[in-house]
C-alpha cells in the first residue's frame, strides 16, 4: 500500500504549481474576477498546452488518458491558485459526454475539449437548487425528430463562456442530456452575480430550443447513471481543488503568524493562534486524505467509491469553510480587507461548499449508502 503520489504524479503536480504561479497569480485572478466571464483565452491556452483540458480524456480522443489521481494533483494546484474560469465546468461536461455519448459524439466533443478548442458546462440546477436528479422538473418535449426545450436552469457555472451547454432534462421518468450551443436560437444566458466572482453563475433560458435526435446524449437510456458518474468525477476533482485552497490559506496564515508582531512577540506564539493553526492543518490533511482517496477509488472502481466521493465532499465543504474562517481570524483586520488575497479563497470556499451539493446533502447520501438494509 502506498498512499502517496508517485514520482510522475509529483512531477505533474510541481509543474502545475509552477505554471499556475506564472500564469495565474493573484493579480491575474483579480483582473479576471472583474470581467464578465472570468475567462481568459491565453490562460486557457496555457492549460490546454499542458494537456490538462484533456487530462482525463481517453487517448483515442486526443487526451492524455490519465486517471483521477493525476487530475486531483493538478486540481489541487488549481485550487491553490484559485484558478478562475470554466475548467471544472468543462471537465464535468466532458465526463458526461464520455459516459453518455456515442463514439461519434465522444469524438465530436472530447477532441476539441482536449485540444482546448471547446468549453462546455452542464445546465442542471433549477429553482429548487437541488443537486438531486429526482428534483428536476424541466421537461423536454418530444417532437420534430428530437426534443424541444422550454424553461430555465439556474446557477449554471460558466454558461457565459461555454460553447456548449449540456442541459439535463426530464423525459417522463427518465432523463435526457441535451447539448445546446450557447449561441443557439432561443437560448438566453443571463449572469447571476454571486459571492465568488472567479466562478461565474448564470441563468439559462430555453425558449423553444430544439435538439435533434442525433445530438441527444445517453439515448440508450442510462443518462441518469452517466450523470451520476460524471457528477462523482467532477465532485472528486472539486474536492482536490478545495484541498489546494485550504493549503494556500494554511500556508499564508502560518507565514503571517510567524511574522506579525503584537505584544512584542509573533502572534504565532500565542496558544490560541497556535491551536487554530493546528486545527487548520488537521482539517487540511484530513481533507486531502479524503479527496485523494475518492479520486483513487473512482479510478479503481472500488466498491467504496460512491461513498468515498460523498465522504470527501461532505468533509471538504465543512473543512474549507472552517479553515478559511480561522485564516481570517488569525490575520485579524487585514484578513478582512479586499486588498488581501484571503478574500479570494474565503469566497471560493463558500461557492465550493454548495457546488455539487453541500455537506448536509452528501451526509444524507452517505446515510443512504451505508445504512444499507433499508
Amino acid at each position, binding site marked *: 500500500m502506498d498512499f502517496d503520489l508517485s514520482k510522475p504524479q509529483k512531477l505533474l503536480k510541481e509543474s502545475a504549481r509552477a505554471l499556475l504561479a506564472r500564469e495565474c497569480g493573484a493579480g491575474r485572478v483579480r483582473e479576471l474576477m472583474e470581467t464578465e466571464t472570468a475567462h481568459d483565452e491565453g490562460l486557457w491556452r496555457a492549460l490546454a498546452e499542458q494537456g490538462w483540458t484533456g487530462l482525463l480524456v481517453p487517448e483515442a480522443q486526443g487526451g492524455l488518458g490519465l486517471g483521477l489521481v493525476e487530475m486531483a494533483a493538478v486540481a489541487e494546484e488549481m485550487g491553490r491558485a484559485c484558478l478562475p474560469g470554466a475548467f471544472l465546468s468543462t471537465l464535468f461536461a466532458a465526463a458526461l459526454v464520455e459516459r453518455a455519448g456515442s463514439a461519434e459524439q465522444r469524438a465530436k466533443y472530447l477532441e476539441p475539449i482536449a485540444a482546448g478548442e471547446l468549453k462546455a458546462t452542464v445546465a442542471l*440546477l433549477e*429553482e*429548487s*437548487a*437541488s443537486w*438531486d436528479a429526482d*428534483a428536476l422538473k424541466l421537461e423536454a418535449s418530444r417532437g420534430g425528430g428530437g426534443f424541444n426545450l422550454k424553461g430555465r436552469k439556474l*446557477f449554471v457555472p460558466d454558461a457565459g463562456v461555454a460553447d456548449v451547454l449540456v442541459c439535463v432534462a426530464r423525459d417522463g421518468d427518465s432523463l435526457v442530456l441535451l447539448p445546446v450551443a450557447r449561441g443557439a436560437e432561443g437560448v438566453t444566458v443571463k449572469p*447571476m*452575480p*454571486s*459571492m*465568488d466572482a472567479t466562478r461565474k*453563475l448564470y441563468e439559462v433560458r430555453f425558449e423553444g430550443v430544439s435538439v435533434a435526435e442525433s445530438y441527444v446524449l445517453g439515448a440508450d437510456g442510462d443518462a441518469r447513471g452517466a450523470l451520476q458518474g460524471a457528477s462523482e468525477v467532477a465532485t472528486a476533482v472539486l474536492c482536490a481543488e478545495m484541498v489546494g485552497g485550504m493549503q494556500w490559506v494554511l500556508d499564508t496564515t502560518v507565514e503571517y503568524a510567524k511574522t506579525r*508582531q*503584537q*505584544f*512584542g*512577540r509573533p502572534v504565532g506564539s*500565542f*496558544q*490560541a*493562534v497556535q491551536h487554530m493553526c493546528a486545527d487548520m492543518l488537521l482539517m487540511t490533511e484530513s481533507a486531502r486524505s479524503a479527496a485523494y482517496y475518492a479520486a483513487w477509488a473512482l479510478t479503481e472502481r472500488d466498491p467504496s467509491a460512491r461513498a468515498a466521493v460523498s465522504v470527501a465532499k461532505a468533509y471538504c465543504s465543512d473543512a474549507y*469553510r472552517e479553515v478559511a*474562517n480561522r485564516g*481570517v*481570524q488569525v490575520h*485579524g*483586520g*487585514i*484578513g*478582512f*480587507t*479586499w*486588498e*488581501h488575497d*484571503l*478574500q479570494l479563497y*474565503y*469566497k471560493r470556499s*463558500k*461557492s465550493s*461548499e*454548495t457546488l455539487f451539493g*453541500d455537506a*448536509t446533502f452528501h451526509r444524507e447520501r452517505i446515510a443512504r449508502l451505508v445504512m444499507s438494509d433499508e
Partner: protein
Amino acid sequence: MDLNLTPSEREFRDEFRAWLGENVPAEWAGGGGGSEDRAEYIEYLRAWQRKLYDGGWAGISWPKEFGGRGATLLEQAIFQEELARANAPQLVGTIGLSLVGPTIIALGTEGQKARHLPQILSGDEIWCQGFSEPNAGSDLAALGTKAARDGEDFIINGQKIWTSFAQMADWCLLLVRTDAEAPKHKGITCLLADMHAAGVTVRPLRQMSGDSGFNEVFFSDVRIGPSQVLGEVNKGWTTAITALMNERANLGTGIQVVFKRQLEALIARSKTVERDGRPASEDPLVRQKLAQAYLELEILRLNTNRALTSLSKAGAPGAEGSIQKLYWSEMNQRTQQYAQEILGPYGQLKEFDKGAWEYAYLRTRGNTIEAGTSEIQRNIIAERVLGLPKSY
C-alpha cells in the same frame, strides 16, 4: 426580579417611540432610500441627527448641564432598541455622542467642553476615533504615530487604520506617542485632531464584502496646538481606557433588534426556498437551525438585560462589555452560516433579497475581529472576571 419596564421606563419608551413614529424619514424606514451619492448621503445623515437634537434626543446619557437628559443606562438601551425597531437611519455622530463627548465631559478643559460638546450634540461635528494602527491592533499600546514637539505645538506623523466615519469626520480623538523612551503605556497622549487640517489624508479601506466602512488615516506633519490635548500629556492611555470603557458600556442594545429583524426575514425565506420538494421550513434540519438561531438571539436579549441591571447597580462598567461582545459576534457568525445553509446557493447571490445574505455573511466575518478580537475578549474575561493569571 422584575423584567417589566418600570412606569417611568415605559413612559420614556412610549415618548421616544411616538417621536420616532412621526420623525423617522419614511423613505428610509421603507428599508431602501437614502442617496447613493456620498456627500448627499452624509448630509442626509447629518440632517437626521439634527432632527434628533432638535427633538431633544441627542446625547441622552449626557448630564443635563451639557445638553443631555441624564438618561439612565436602561433608558439608553431603550433608546437604542427603539432606534433599531423604527429602522431609523444610522446615527452619524455616534462616536462623538457615545465615546468622545463623555470623555470630554470627564477629562476635558472648560474650553474644550464649550467648543465641542454642543457641536457633537447637533451633529455639526462628526467625530472618528484614531486609535488602531497597522502595527497596533490587539496590542493597542504599541501605537507608533509620532507627535514631535515644536514649541508648544505637536507635529503629528503616522497612520491610523480601521477608522469608521473618517471619510466624513470633522474631528478625530487621536492617540499619539509623545514619549518614545517611556514604557509603552506611559508615552501616549490623547489629542483632539481637526480632520480638515493640512496633512490629514483619508483613504477608504475596502472590505472583503466590497464596501468601505473603515478607513486609513494618514498624518503628515499635522500641527496640533496645546489646547487640543485631552487629559494630560503622556497620560493618554488613561484617557483611552476611559473612552473604551464608555464604548464597551454600550452593550450592543440596538444590535439585537437588527438581528431579530434578520432572523424574521430568514424564517420568512425558509418558507419560500425548497428542500426535497417542500418548503425548507418543514425540513427538520432547517427547523433545528432556525430554532437554535432563535434561542441564541433570545439569550442575547436576556444577557443584555442582565448586564444592564448589573451595570446600573454597579455604576462602573466591568467586563460585561467583553462578555456581550464575545457572545453576539460568535452568535452572529453561526446564524449567518445557518442562513447560508438554509438558502443554499441563493444565499450567495448579489441580487437575491438585494444581496442581503451574501453581504451579511461576509460582513459578519469581521465581527470577531473588530472592536477587540474574540481572543482578546476571552483573555479579558479570564483575567478580569475569573481572576486567572495573565497569559502573556
